[in-house]
């Protein structure tokens, strides 16, 4: 191979640079809490926090398909509690502070879901 030294060094630098976010992330120093405010009157969400944090969008998608297409409008959570399937009327019932809950985390994670072009945020309708 021509210029083996330079090429290999170049590749190594490239790989290190590309994976840099992971290494920096592992040190854990830059972790900042998003500072979201949890609902005050309710302690338990539909499922446990870890699941909700990671999977809430997938759950919502599944809820949508079950409710709209199969007419399964009730969700029986793993703890046996029954929930009526509705983003607007069940989820937002407790999570009524959009700015302090949904938006803070979405902005911190640079995700911009457009749920709210249709679903009405509590208190938004004046």
């Amino acid at each position, binding site marked *: 191979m021509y210029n083996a030294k330079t090429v290999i060094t170049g590749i190594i630098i490239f790989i290190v640079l590309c994976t840099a976010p992971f290494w920096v992330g592992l040190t854990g120093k830059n972790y900042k809490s998003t500072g979201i405010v949890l609902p005050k009157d309710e302690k338990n969400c*539909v*499922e446990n926090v870890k*699941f909700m944090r990671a*999977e809430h969008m*997938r*759950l919502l*998608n*599944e*809820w*949508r398909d*079950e*409710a*709209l*297409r*199969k*007419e*399964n*409008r*009730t*969700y*029986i*959570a*793993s703890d046996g509690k*029954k929930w*009526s*399937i509705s983003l*607007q*009327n069940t989820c937002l019932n407790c999570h009524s502070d959009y700015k302090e809950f949904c938006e803070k985390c979405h902005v911190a994670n640079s995700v911009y879901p*457009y749920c709210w*072009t*249709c*679903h*009405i945020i*509590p208190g938004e*309708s*004046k």
Partner: protein
Amino acid sequence: MNKNRRSFLKAAGLSVFALSGGLAAVPGATQARTAPGRYDRGDNAPHAKRWAMVMYTRKFTGPEDYEPLIVACHKEHNVPNIPGAQNIKWFWLDSYEHTFPDDMNAYLNEKIRAASYPLLCNHCTNPPCVRVCPTQATYKTEDGIVAMDYHRCIGCRFCMAGCPYGARSFNFIDPRKFLPAATPNPVFPTRMIGVVEKCTFCSERLAAGKIPACVEASKGRILFGDLEDASSNVRLALASNFSIRRKPSLGTQPGVYYLI
């Protein structure tokens, strides 16, 4: 050497292509459940094999008689009021000639000719809109309702070309600027720009054990029930009255019946 490199590149390119194809297929394959819980029907939701509507048009004296029904529907579902030809209609009125164009004759009884007739989605047994939709954004539910999933609609408007009743509306413009009430109904979403919408037979109200909003507002002049149940209110009304449907010759089997 040169040839080897060429064939290596070819093989490498093909493998990358195949691999990425495989990766692309994964999201389709992982349709497994996300939720750890179970799904079930609503407790107090009434069920039917095929929901249908019967309109006692004789019992309405004029267009103003239908007004509360339209208001009830449009408020309930946040149906915008957009001026012009790019408007949205869920429940609206038209003349006999335009509602039943195949049934028109020049000497039709003046009262029937001059009357207004309520129009809405017919929730056909054999709906052309469902047939043509390329994403299953519109589909038929088990109880005969032609439903819409606005999340999935790409706005191709094939269903609007397909519907022979003009029951479908497209959001040409942001509907939130044209909502009918100062405060939108907080329990029902609005729609967004670029999707098609229509009457849903109030499937969300049915799920909560309520009858459709227009039926409720009609004070008994519109019946709603199971067409497959011989003892249902709609079947009894159809058995004892002369009824017509819109454009029956197209084979769509509308679920909205008019008693003239």
